[in-house]
């Protein structure tokens, strides 16, 4: 019955397509695929902005006394004066690089793009459960982006209290010199929270209730599992950030003192609230990447994912543990050391499911028929970089080590190994992998491989030395390190890091060129260029409005590669009908 209704509405949607205006079809669209592409363009833009901010920072770190910033003249006097990046602007760079990358680039690219694109397609449904809410979740990101960009140009400049917005620094304009910029960023954050919550409601409801017939929980691709778990994390963590952000706005605007000690408030409360959100956020930023990697490695190795159930359980346990470890960001905050110990232990537990996943990825590749295309290279790169970032995470989980490396470049190295080497590598892989489905053409492989190797080499040149710079004691948000006795002798390392960072940024443009060039000139992709099994590959590229002519029925698990019972090919699509039709075969 439900199928019939769904098919009927599906055909109605297909029919409707011809009558939609340009505005309804491409701008205010409720089609999950269009929304995903809107998110993709939005996030790639902010990825570039975030990268640009990082380049300015790197210039300052490498040559703090030189001035002569190239094109420094295009910046207002309040940011760059006679070629010198001003300290206040540097604070804004540090803050907004982190904020933009986390909230406007990586997070919406992981979730906004891929949850939107893949959940309906991989689950075999026509669209999201609530298409109009879905549209709203994109359009809530637009004011967030505008406010963020605008905040650079208001009096006092953009927020400068670090992306963690620690109070009282973030709550009192007299401490940073930033008033309106901080408020604008907080308002943007509330919009981002709204977008994220609306999106999560959609992803969770769709996954629970709209799976194609036969798509049982344990037949869902790992991408869907990871996006589903991520949506739960965002659903429960984002509102806490929104509540905290609103209280911080009140502290700045209407004279409350939630986080201001002089009014009886507690700065530590901000840290608890922020990291109660912030640590699940870390997993929001990595779990989808793990899902893409599992998928790409399985397709690229022509083997089922090693330990599918263990992978699912590892995802669930990482998500659960993610909610009880936030205090490991606060070992130095003056909280009770006993509490610190419990946070150390719970944090170390996370190494177990993380290791399960890492070994299972290697198990997936082991003796596989490896196809080293760009997507696969990035997925393998993800595993390697995530291992390094994960291991340095174990260092800082332990309180005594963390006290030494706290707030140094070691932390910066760690976060970039998991967020860039991890999340962004997987995202590049995902774009190379699903681009043919999105746009019907392949991205250029040669450019893709060059992009991978440039990114891989420059990335490690940038971030590996940061471990050492951090061990020496270079502080995380320092404007000019040359004046400190203990930081003498790291100037050359910093200069090398900066040159490598320029290379890393530049290699991003090769990717951008490939992205746009392939839209027109890429090789035409068929429905299933990778010979993949999941449902999205069993419909034309790009899929039509409504995705399916007919709702697919699922008979198999998600990663049936090199199946021993299949002779003519090495893959078995999820909706391929078994030859012997027995009523129970597909349903349970």
């Amino acid at each position: 019955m439900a199928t019939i209704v769904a098919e009927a509405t599906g055909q109605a949607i297909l029919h409707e397509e011809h009558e939609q205006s340009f505005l309804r079809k491409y701008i205010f669209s409720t089609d999950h695929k269009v929304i995903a592409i809107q998110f993709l363009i939005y996030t790639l833009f902010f990825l570039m902005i975030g990268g640009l901010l990082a380049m300015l920072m790197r210039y300052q770190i490498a040559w703090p006394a030189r001035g002569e910033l190239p094109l420094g003249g295009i910046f207002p006097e309040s940011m760059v004066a006679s070629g010198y990046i001003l300290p206040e602007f540097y604070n804004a760079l540090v803050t907004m690089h982190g904020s933009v990358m986390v909230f406007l680039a990586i997070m919406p690219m992981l979730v906004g793009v891929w949850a939107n694109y893949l959940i309906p397609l991989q689950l075999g449904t026509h669209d999201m459960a609530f298409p109009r809410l879905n549209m709203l979740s994109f359009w809530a990101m637009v004011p967030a982006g505008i406010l963020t960009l605008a905040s650079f140009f208001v009096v006092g400049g953009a927020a400068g209290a670090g992306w963690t917005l620690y109070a009282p620094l973030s709550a009192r304009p007299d401490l940073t010199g930033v008033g309106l910029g901080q408020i604008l960023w907080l308002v943007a954050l509330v919009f981002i929270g709204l977008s994220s919550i609306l999106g999560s409601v959609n992803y969770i409801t769709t996954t629970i209730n709209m799976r194609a017939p036969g798509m049982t929980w344990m037949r869902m691709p790992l991408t869907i599992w990871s996006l589903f778990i991520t949506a739960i994390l965002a659903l429960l963590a984002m509102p806490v950030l929104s509540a905290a952000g609103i209280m911080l706005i009140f502290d700045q605007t209407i004279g409350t003192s939630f986080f201001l000690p002089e009014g009886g408030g507690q700065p530590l409360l901000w840290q608890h609230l922020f990291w109660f959100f912030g640590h699940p956020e870390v997993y929001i930023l990595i779990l989808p990447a793990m899902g893409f990697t599992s998928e790409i490695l399985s397709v690229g190795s022509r083997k089922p994912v090693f330990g599918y159930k263990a992978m699912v359980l590892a995802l669930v346990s990482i998500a659960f543990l993610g909610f009880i470890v936030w205090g490991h960001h606060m070992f130095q905050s003056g909280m009770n050391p006993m509490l610190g110990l419990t946070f150390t232990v719970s944090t170390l537990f996370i190494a177990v499911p993380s290791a399960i996943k890492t070994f299972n990825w290697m198990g997936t590749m082991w003796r596989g028929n490896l196809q080293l295309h760009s997507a696969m290279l990035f997925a393998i790169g993800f595993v390697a970089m995530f291992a390094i970032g994960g291991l340095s995470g174990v260092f800082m989980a332990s309180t005594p080590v963390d006290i030494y490396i706290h707030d140094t470049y070691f932390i910066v190295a760690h976060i970039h190994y998991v967020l860039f080497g991890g999340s962004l590598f997987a995202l590049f892989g995902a774009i190379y992998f699903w681009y043919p489905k999105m746009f019907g053409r392949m991205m250029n492989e040669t450019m893709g491989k060059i992009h991978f190797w440039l990114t891989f080499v420059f990335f490690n040149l940038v971030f590996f030395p940061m471990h050492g710079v951090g061990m020496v004691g270079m502080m995380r948000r320092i404007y000019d390190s040359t004046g400190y006795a203990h930081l003498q002798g790291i100037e050359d390392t910093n200069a090398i890091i900066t040159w490598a960072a320029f290379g890393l940024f530049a290699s991003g443009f090769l990717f951008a060129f490939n992205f746009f060039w392939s839209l027109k000139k890429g090789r035409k992709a068929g429905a299933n260029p990778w010979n993949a099994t999941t449902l999205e590959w069993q419909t034309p590229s790009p899929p039509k409005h409504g995705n399916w002519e007919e709702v697919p029925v699922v008979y198999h698990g998600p990663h049936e590669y090199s199946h021993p019972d299949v002779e003519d090919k090495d893959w078995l699509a999820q909706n391929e009908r078994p030859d012997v039709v027995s009523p129970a075969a597909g349903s349970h």
Partner: protein
Amino acid sequence: MAHAATAGRVPERGLDVYTQKVGMWVFLCSEVMFFAGLIGSYVVLRFGAADTWAVPNEVLNVPITAFNTFLLICSSVTMVKAFAAAQAGDQRGIKVYLLGTTLLGATFLGVQVYEYVELVLHQSWQGSHGFTPAAGLYGATFFTMTGFHGFHVLLGVICLAWATIRAWRGHWGADNTHGIEVLGLYWHFVDLVWIILFTIVYLI
């Protein structure tokens, strides 16, 4: 039909609950966390405060708010009755109870606005005139928590008014109850939050 063999089979489509209801439950989980953030902060600030916390009765008008609480609880009852009427296809009942719920919600808001105005204009706080959000942690937590609750009531009243207008157009009935049920879930949640807030802000 390629899948003729399975055409008669009841397809697996997740829970045996319609999508809008699942969506509302999921959304309410997020709302729980939002209020948990506010209430948790209140608890931490109140028990960490250096000065003694003000006695609610000396600052706030507890009796009138107790009456307001009664109104909101009644509105949950009328909401239940509206849903029952919809299930029974009782058009008059749907109209009466939806309108009743809307009016009770609106009255609650009116009383809350009156309470705010009285506090800001006439209540004295630590020797100065006017009890505002800037009046220490007490004022900050009071206005933030009750204010955000009031905002949720406002959203609920707007949706209820819209549902009531639709009731007069004969939109609801025994075959169309989902909207009322989902709105009811939200309304009961808002009511429940208020009972917690009333207890911890006005009573203890």
